[in-house]
C-alpha cells in the first residue's frame, strides 16, 4: 500500500518514503504554526497516521504585505528599500534584479566597477543568508551549537556589509545605473581576512554538523525530491540543485560581474535534506572565491564613481568631492522623480534561496505600472505538500529547515 497525497498515490507520482495505509477515522490533524514554526510565520496543517504524515498542507500568507501593489504608488527608486524587506538579510540579492529591470527599461548598463561592487555585496549577503539558514536548521533539529556558531560567524559578513554600505542589513545598495558606495580603504584587508577565516572555519562546521553522525542520521534520506519531481514542482535554488538540476540564475543568464568571475555551481544528485545542506555548504566556499576575485579586481582598477554616466557626467563638483573623500555616490535630485520610458522588462537573479524574478512594466510615469515578483520561497513551499507525506512528524523540521523556507519572502 502507499501514501495518499490528495487522491493520488504517492508511489504513482514516483515519490519514495515510508509506506503507510490510509486510515480515514484514525487520522489526527496537527497544526504546526503559525506562531513561528521556524524562520517566520506560516502554518503547515498535517494529518498524521500514528507518527507518519499522510497529508500536509502549507498555509501561507500570514505576512503578506501587498508589496506588488504598494510599489505602484512609489517612485521607482523608493521601491528598492521596499522590496528589500522581503529578505532583509539577503537585501542585495533580492533587489539587484529589480534594479536590473529598471536599467533595461532605461537602456543603460552600469559601469564595470558598479557591477563588481554589487556582485561583492551579493556574495556577502549569500554567505550571511546561508549561515542564517544553517543556524535555523540547526536549532530545528536540536543542534543548538550550530545555531550559535553560524549566527556568530554571520556577524563577520554583516560587519563587512556594514563597512561597504553603512548599514548592517537593509543596505539599499543597488540603484539604477550603479551602486551607492565604493569600498572603503580598509575593506580589502578585512575581506581577505574574513575569507581566510571562513575557509578554516568551514572545516569545523563540517565536523560538528554535516559529518556528525547524529545530524547525518536525521538528514540522510529525509525529504527526498527526485530530479524529475523537482523539475515538475518547479523548485529553485539549492533545493533544485540538491536534486541534480543544474540550474542557477548566475549560470543561466549571468548578470553583473558573474560572467567574469570564476566559480562553480555545486550540484548534488541525492535530493535529500543532507544534499541540500551540502549544496549550501559548498556554495559558501564558492562565494568566498567570488569575494576574493571581486576585491582583487576592485583594488586593481582605478576608483571611479560606480554609476552610469547619465547620473554622473553632469553632476556638480561637490558630487565628485564627496566621492573622493568618502567613496559615497551622491544622487542627483532627479533620481527622486526619475521617469522611465514606457516599456517592460524582466530580470532575474539568484538569491540565497533560489531564483527571484521581476517583471516590471512602465507606462512612462514616475511610478511603476506593474511590478510582478516571483520569489524563490514561494516556489519552494510546494515541497511541503508533495514531499512531506510519508515521513515522520519529527522529519518535518528537517524538511522545513533544509529547504530554508522564508515566509516574509514567499508572502511578499
Amino acid at each position, binding site marked *: 500500500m502507499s501514501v495518499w497525497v490528495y487522491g493520488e498515490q504517492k508511489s504513482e507520482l514516483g515519490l519514495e518514503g515510508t509506506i503507510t495505509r490510509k486510515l480515514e477515522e484514525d487520522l489526527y490533524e496537527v497544526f504546526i504554526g503559525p506562531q513561528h514554526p521556524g524562520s517566520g510565520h506560516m502554518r503547515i496543517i498535517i494529518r498524521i497516521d500514528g507518527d507518519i504524515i499522510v497529508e500536509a498542507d502549507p498555509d501561507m500568507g500570514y505576512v503578506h504585505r501587498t508589496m506588488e501593489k504598494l510599489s505602484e504608488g512609489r517612485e521607482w527608486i*523608493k521601491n528598492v528599500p521596499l522590496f528589500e524587506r522581503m529578505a532583509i538579510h539577503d537585501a542585495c540579492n533580492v533587489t539587484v534584479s529589480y534594479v536590473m529591470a529598471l536599467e533595461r527599461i532605461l537602456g543603460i548598463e552600469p559601469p564595470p566597477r558598479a557591477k563588481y561592487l554589487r556582485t561583492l555585496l551579493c556574495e556577502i549577503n549569500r554567505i550571511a543568508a546561508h549561515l542564517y539558514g544553517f543556524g535555523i536548521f540547526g536549532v530545528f533539529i536540536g543542534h543548538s551549537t550550530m545555531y550559535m556558531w553560524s549566527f556568530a560567524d554571520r556577524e563577520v559578513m554583516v560587519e*563587512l556589509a*556594514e563597512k561597504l554600505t553603512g548599514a548592517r542589513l537593509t543596505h539599499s545598495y543597488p540603484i539604477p545605473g550603479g551602486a*551607492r558606495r565604493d569600498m572603503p580603504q580598509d575593506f580589502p584587508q578585512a575581506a581577505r581576512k574574513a575569507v581566510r577565516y571562513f575557509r578554516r572555519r568551514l572545516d569545523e562546521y563540517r565536523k560538528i554538523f554535516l559529518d*556528525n553522525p547524529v545530524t547525518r542520521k536525521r538528514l540522510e534520506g529525509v525529504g527526498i525530491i527526485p530530479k524529475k519531481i523537482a523539475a515538475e514542482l518547479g523548485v529553485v535554488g539549492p533545493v533544485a540543485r540538491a536534486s541534480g538540476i543544474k540550474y542557477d540564475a548566475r549560470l543561466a543568464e549571468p548578470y553583473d560581474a558573474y560572467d567574469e568571475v570564476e566559480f562553480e555551481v555545486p550540484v548534488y544528485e541525492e535530493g535529500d535534506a543532507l544534499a541540500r545542506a551540502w549544496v549550501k555548504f559548498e556554495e559558501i566556499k564558492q562565494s568566498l572565491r567570488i569575494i576574493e576575485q571581486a576585491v582583487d579586481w576592485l583594488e586593481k582598477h582605478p576608483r571611479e564613481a560606480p554609476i552610469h554616466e547619465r547620473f554622473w557626467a553632469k553632476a556638480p563638483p*561637490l558630487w565628485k568631492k564627496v566621492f573622493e573623500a568618502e567613496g559615497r555616490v551622491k544622487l542627483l535630485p532627479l533620481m*527622486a522623480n526619475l521617469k522611465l520610458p514606457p516599456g517592460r522588462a524582466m530580470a532575474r537573479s539568484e538569491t540565497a534561496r533560489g531564483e527571484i524574478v521581476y517583471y516590471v512594466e512602465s507606462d512612462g510615469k514616475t511610478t511603476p505600472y506593474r511590478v510582478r515578483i516571483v520569489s524563490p520561497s514561494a516556489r519552494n513551499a510546494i515541497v511541503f505538500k508533495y514531499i512531506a507525506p510519508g515521513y515522520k512528524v519529527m522529519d518535518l523540521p528537517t524538511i522545513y529547515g533544509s529547504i530554508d523556507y522564508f515566509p516574509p519572502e514567499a508572502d511578499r
Partner: protein
Amino acid sequence: MPAKPVVKRLPARKGLFAGFKGNVDAITIGLKYLVDPKRFTLIYPNEYIKLDPGYRGFIVLDPKKCIHCSSCARICPAAAMRMIKRMEEDPKTGKPKMKLWPVINYQRCIFCGYCVDVCPTEALYTVPYHDIVYENMAEMDWSLETFVKPPEHPTAKEGIPVKYIVDEEKGLVKVRAEEVEEK
C-alpha cells in the same frame, strides 16, 4: 570565465568505525571551544561600539548649508522627511519671508540614507550612532530645533568605546577603540 556546474557526491559513510570517528571529531571540536571559547559579547551599555564614520546613523541638518530645495523630502521612501513652512526675516530686505525647512520623523525613518545622498549642498549628515531611546513616540518626531544639532549620545558618556575587527583566527574580535585608532 563564467560559472560551471559541478556534480558532487556526498561524502561516503562506510566502514565499521565511520560513526565512531565522526562522533569523536564532533566532540573534540566541541571540547576545544569549551576550553577556549570564542566570545565577543558586547557588555552594553558598559561598552558600546564605536561605529565607522560611514555608518548610516541618525541624520542631522546643517541649517547654514540648506537651500530649502525639498529634494530630501521628495526622495524619502518612508515619508519620514517632510517640509514645514516658517516665517523668517530675510537678511537682505529685513522683511518677513516664507521658507521651507526639512524636519524628520524618526518613527518612520528607515535609515536608507537617500536624503543624505541626494542633498545638493551636503546639508544633511549622519552621526555614527543609533542607540538613542525615547520615552514616547511624539519625541521621535523631531522639530526643526532638534534637527539642527546632533542628538545626545548617552552611552558614549558612560561606556567604553570598543570596535569589532575581522580577525583571521577568531572571526570577529572585540578591541578597545583606541587600540585600533593607534594603528
